[in-house]
């Protein structure tokens, strides 16, 4: 379905200022309400989309990998079922200037072989991420945290020993950033910054993730791994909170075909699916209402205009096309799972994000179409000289349906002739990157729960800015926001950036995603309010 899998949607949120002197929370684990009858067999089976590319957190970049690694390795912080940042290996942390962070690690954290988890493990791991020898595809994530020398080390101009991280003592970790990053602690929930066991890596090299070699510090450890078939995890007896783990086995199945996955759910072989097939949604919602789970998701669906190319370098053309899309038809009739119409690049579910509805968002569709017609004829397009272009999307039934609907909306309301062109994923990425398109489908999921994870896409120097939007004013707002240490001020600037996007319309936002899946009602502890879809198996249990 949506090809958004190759990004880790991650890293957490501290909703309020981190300038707080110090923070401390109680631990979170399988929280079984009193009176719940637990099933005799506590084994859980989860659909996990595609086969994991690796179980080494420093070599992965996808969502399926993160789902498994979240159970195998524990970073400085975790998330609770609401998506709040809670302590992981770090019991508490403090900062005074959002540049120097001190983490106090719990003393009872252990690796699965019994070794203690220390600050040195994090120092080793962070250095390993930026080390060019590791060739981590997410090395840039540490660059994004602004950790001292991360960029230089990746580029090969500085030694990895100069990274801004050090162990003050075995249980105190200190991280130094080049500029203030108020959401730094949330970023520490990401897969890329999970610790790895140095001795195992030195002994086994690339083979350290094999079940027979694996040493982790998460609630579970690997028992069995058959590529393209299953990964089985069992509790890690040395995990500091193992007493609260209820499940005795967790199996991840890599099933790409949504219908196959649904069938296996319906025949009782899977407890939690990864997705659900859109075309079966209505039937499932009717016949299996108790199993359908649809929390909001930190992702946006939009069409990007090629702003560098005529006629899309004309804001009137871009606006006309955006206005003429009837978003309600798409969310209600084509998708119908609770997706919301989008008028912003940033999904409204993002923490602290309160945008103002742009003028066109308040009009009826009829009024929008009228404005669109006027704009298009002003731009010089009419019956004698109709606008013609190609709409690019990556091959998928869902994208095709939406593209066909929008094609007909544009044709009917504006007389625009649109040709649809679908390309297989990697070919499509290539075409988009080379700017060889008129209008292209795009989607984005946040790497962390903060508007900048979306809005930075439209900065003129951003490598993902395929629509080639270039606005000095926008860049200025974003730079100011990224330097601001005040949450309120920062979010106000993000709202301002969205106002500018509605005015320049470099992209046409279409809808805000939901994460629809099937969850067997006997699964307890499932996080239905975690926008980043971070499911920790240690928090789950099976009811009778």
């Amino acid at each position, binding site marked *: 379905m949506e*090809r*958004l899998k*190759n*990004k880790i949607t991650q890293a957490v949120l501290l909703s309020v200022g981190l300038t707080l002197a110090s923070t401390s929370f109680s631990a979170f684990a399988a929280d079984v309400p009193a009176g719940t009858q637990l099933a005799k067999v506590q084994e859980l089976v989860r659909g996990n989309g*595609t*086969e994991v*590319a*690796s*179980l*080494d957190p420093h*070599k992965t*970049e996808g969502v399926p990998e993160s789902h498994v690694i979240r159970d195998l390795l524990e970073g400085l912080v975790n998330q609770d079922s609401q998506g709040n940042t809670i302590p992981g290996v770090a019991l508490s942390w403090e900062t005074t200037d959002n540049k120097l962070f001190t983490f106090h690690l719990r003393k009872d954290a252990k690796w699965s072989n019994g070794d203690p988890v220390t600050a040195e493990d994090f120092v080793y791991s962070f250095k390993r991420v930026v080390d*060019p*020898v*590791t*060739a*981590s*595809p997410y*090395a*840039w994530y540490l*660059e994004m945290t602004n950790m001292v020398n991360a960029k230089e080390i*990746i*580029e*090969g101009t500085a030694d990895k020993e100069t990274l801004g991280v050090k162990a003050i003592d075995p249980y105190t970790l200190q991280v130094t950033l080049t500029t203030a990053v108020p959401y730094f602690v949330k970023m520490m929930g990401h897969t890329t910054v999970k610790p790895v066991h140095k001795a195992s890596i030195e002994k086994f090299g*690339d*083979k350290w*993730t*094999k079940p027979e070699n694996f040493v982790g510090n998460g609630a579970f450890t690997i028992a069995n791994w*058959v*590529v*393209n*078939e*299953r990964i089985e995890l069992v509790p890690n007896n040395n995990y500091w909170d193992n007493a609260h783990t209820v499940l005795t086995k967790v199996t991840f*199945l*890599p*099933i*790409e*075909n949504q*219908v*196959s996955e649904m*069938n*296996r759910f*319906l*025949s009782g*072989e899977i407890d939690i699916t990864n997705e659900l097939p859109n075309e079966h949604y209505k039937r499932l919602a009717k016949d299996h209402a108790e199993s359908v789970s649809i929390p909001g998701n930190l992702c946006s669906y939009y069409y990007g205009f090629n702003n560098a190319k005529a006629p899309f370098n004309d804001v009137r053309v871009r606006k006309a096309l955006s206005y003429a899309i009837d978003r309600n038809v798409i969310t209600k009739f084509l998708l119908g799972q609770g997706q919301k119409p989008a008028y912003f690049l940033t999904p409204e579910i993002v923490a602290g994000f309160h945008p103002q509805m742009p003028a066109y968002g308040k009009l009826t569709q009829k009024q929008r179409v009228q404005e669109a017609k006027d704009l298009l004829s002003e731009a010089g397009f009419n019956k004698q000289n109709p606008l013609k272009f190609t709409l690019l999307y990556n091959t998928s039934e869902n994208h095709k349906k939406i593209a066909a609907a929008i094609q007909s909306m544009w044709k009917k309301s504006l007389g625009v002739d649109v040709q649809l062109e679908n390309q*297989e*994923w*990697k*070919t499509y*990425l*290539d*075409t988009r*990157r080379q700017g060889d398109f008129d209008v292209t489908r795009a989607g*984005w999921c946040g790497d962390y729960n903060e508007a900048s994870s979306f809005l930075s896409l439209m900065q003129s120097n951003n*490598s*993902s800015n395929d629509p080639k939007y270039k606005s000095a004013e926008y860049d200025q707002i974003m730079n100011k926001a990224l330097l601001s240490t005040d949450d309120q001020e920062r979010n106000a600037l993000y709202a301002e950036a969205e106002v500018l996007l509605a005015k320049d319309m470099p992209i046409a936002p279409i809808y805000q995603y939901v994460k629809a899946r099937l969850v067997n009602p006997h699964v307890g502890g499932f996080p239905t309010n975690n926008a980043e879809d971070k499911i920790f198996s240690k928090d789950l249990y099976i009811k009778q």
Partner: protein
Amino acid sequence: MFKFIAKRILEAIPTLLVLITISFFLMRFAPGNPFSTERPLPPEVMENINAKYGLDKSVFEQYTTYLTNVLQGDFGPSFKYKDFTVNELVASALPVSAKVGAAAFVFTLIMGVGVGTIAALKQNTWIDYTIMSTAMIGVVMPSFVLAPALIYVFSIYLGWFPAGGWLDGSFQYMFLPVIGMSLLYVATFARITRGSMIETLNSNFIRTARAKGLSYTYIVLKHALKPAMLPVVSYMGPAFVGIITGSVVIETIFGLPGIGKLFVNAAFNRDYSLVMGVTILIGFLFIIFNTVVDILLAAIDPKIRY
């Protein structure tokens, strides 16, 4: 015969070499690369990755290095599945495909030849019509329609078999995939066998045998079956190819960890080394199997001599 086999093996070497060369360059010239993602990697990270996988060298240099390694039996690390080498991945996937494929192939032959023969012997009776019309449905029903239908009936509705997975590859996990993979070929083999059998039964030497007063069963088994098998054996080659390539669909639908699924994912991921490894493996298997079919043909047809 020995000379024939030796000749076929020698011929296989240039064939494989051409196969390797063409696939190698086609793969490199396909748009996209193993490491292209929605968020483009910073150039410095990309450089580190390219250096690690030898992609920073010229394509020709990569080609010669690859050939040298392959000759030593080393198919390199997978570009996508970073914790495994191509050799490890193939070693874990091949037994699964081989087991399902072999079971499907044997089932196909026994069923196809069996019902085809029965239909021929009961020519133009209701038995013949029932078998042949069922076979017709089998021929026109693609596996991507048949397999979900089987799952719906046998897994969801009746609950007799699991809807997918492999586990240890026991009978219950193999049953539906094998049926899904074979039905098309059972139907085709039945049709071929029936036609060929009827033709053989009407030929002169059978009439002679009957004139000599031999029993009908004896004539069918001893005299008719062997010549009637010629077109069947000839079709075994293409059927084998079909089962291997068709395994892509079946393995995806049933979630089997076999070669077909590995191959498709490798192509989508632009996993250069894995695509190459599986291509070479399948090419090699085809050559072997075609040789086997040729030997079988020579054994049953006195007109063929090598």
